[in-house]
């Protein structure tokens, strides 16, 4: 494949841990659902802040609470975040001061408030606004500096797929992935459910035996979760709209899905919300549920997400710009307010997969430089932590 494109750099926010942000958010994290509305109240009031309400943080079994904590810490450490305020209730499992101190290891300013210590909601909100004011003031003084593509982690996601996703948008995004990896960057391919039936393709490209075995392990684990219940994944994934769009089986969806990762070696496999230590193509074990998958990606340090869709999906992320790529021209014109790039011209023969892949690559750098994506402009900030156990 031809991989010739002009050298791209971008201006980003250099963090103390050496990572580079493409956005500069002050993040307000509830360590438990009990703090959600207080975090929302502060974020609503203070410019430059964003809160990430969720349903977790307490009455969770150890392995599940650990995953919630890892996710909140990972999102706080993400280089798109300049500073953090963590708010807890005081009696929760996912303790807010633990979350705050782990995020502080990245060197960014992190503050912690506890509702039971502050004396209730109004007092916590009042104190939180005061802290947020100082953090926003700090963040606003940071300047963008020249950065290289090897500091980028691009998450590749697909949602609301149709048959054109596997024929146009996903292979084009695969070209983008190959281009970024060639420049030393990292691609995280997630959605394990949507690799079932395509694992042999990924395993063939594993860098070593350990990675190959891990690929088979995460796929078997996901498939067995349905089989052990005696249930059919096909009732949940593919979704009704996938079937309507021409996808017949999970295997067909998966074979189209994994094309987003391009054609390079698989360098590693990480757990949900785990920060990869390898560059190049990395797999993350997430469900096909897009909001949960994207939350795992941003906790893993992804600064930008490229998201293909055939049926039309508006999802965004609280801290990462999400670039929406339409797989067909009908969707692109129908939902133009949500779509950034049209890969539909591949289907009509007007453009090649290579050309669209290059245009996504250039868009990644425009967005890294500060261009807002449609998901950001439309205010999409969906955040959902993957749950692996029941509440108790």
């Amino acid at each position, binding site marked *: 494949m031809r991989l010739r494109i002009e050298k791209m750099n971008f201006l980003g926010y250099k963090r103390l841990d050496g990572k580079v942000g493409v956005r500069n958010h002050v993040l307000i994290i509830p360590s438990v659902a009990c703090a959600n509305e207080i975090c929302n109240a502060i974020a609503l009031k203070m410019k430059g802040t964003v809160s990430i309400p969720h349903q977790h943080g307490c009455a969770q079994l150890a392995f599940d609470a650990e995953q919630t904590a890892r996710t909140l810490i990972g999102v706080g450490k993400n280089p798109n975040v300049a500073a953090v305020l963590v708010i807890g209730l005081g009696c929760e499992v996912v303790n807010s001061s633990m979350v705050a101190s782990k995020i502080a290891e990245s060197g960014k300013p992190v503050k912690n408030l506890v509702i039971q210590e502050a004396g209730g909601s109004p007092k916590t909100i009042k104190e939180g606004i005061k802290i947020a004011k100082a953090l926003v003031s700090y963040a606003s003084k940071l300047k963008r500096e020249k950065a290289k593509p090897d500091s980028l982690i691009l998450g590749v996601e697909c949602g609301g797929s*149709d048959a054109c996703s596997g024929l146009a948008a996903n292979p084009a995004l695969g070209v983008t992935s190959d281009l970024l990896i060639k420049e030393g960057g990292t691609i995280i391919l997630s959605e394990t459910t949507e690799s079932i*039936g395509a694992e042999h393709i990924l395993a063939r490209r594993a860098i070593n035996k350990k990675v190959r075995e891990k690929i088979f392990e995460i796929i078997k684990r996901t498939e067995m979760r349905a089989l052990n219940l005696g*249930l059919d994944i*096909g009732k949940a994934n593919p979704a009704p709209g996938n079937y309507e769009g*021409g996808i*017949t*089986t*999970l295997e067909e969806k998966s074979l189209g899905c994994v094309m987003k990762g391009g054609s390079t070696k698989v360098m590693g496999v990480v757990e949900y919300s785990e920060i990869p230590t390898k560059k190049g193509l990395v797999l993350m074990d997430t469900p096909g549920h897009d909001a949960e998958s994207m939350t795992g990606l941003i906790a893993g340090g992804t600064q930008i997400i490229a998201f293909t869709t055939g049926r039309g999906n508006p999802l965004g992320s609280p801290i990462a710009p999400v670039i929406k790529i339409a797989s*067909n021209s009908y969707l692109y014109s129908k939902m133009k307010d949500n779509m950034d790039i049209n890969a539909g011209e591949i289907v*009509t023969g007007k453009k090649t997969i290579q050309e669209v892949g290059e245009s996504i690559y250039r868009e990644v750098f425009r967005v890294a430089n500060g261009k807002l994506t449609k998901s950001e402009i439309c205010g999409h900030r969906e955040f959902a932590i993957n749950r692996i156990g029941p509440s108790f």
Partner: protein
Amino acid sequence: MSKAIKNLILCHPKDNVATASSPLNTGTLLSLTEQKTIVAKEQIPFGHKIALQKIRKGGPVIKYGERIGRTIREIKPGEWVHIHNVVGERGRGKGRKKG
């Protein structure tokens, strides 16, 4: 009879199905090669699959050069290939276990 038109996407030479790149009406003549043509036996929606050859009952459906499922009845060339005549083979439990 409609004219032979280019409105299919064939992903891989091994495939026994192709994807309609525009909606196909019943009777549409499709040129696979200069010699080989098939006729759409029924309406095929945009993005959906058409059989390029006979696929026996229980036989594999091949797209991207890979097996994407098996047929639940014989499919004739030109027929619409979808959930009414094909099933996936992965992640499918056979009813909740008892006890």
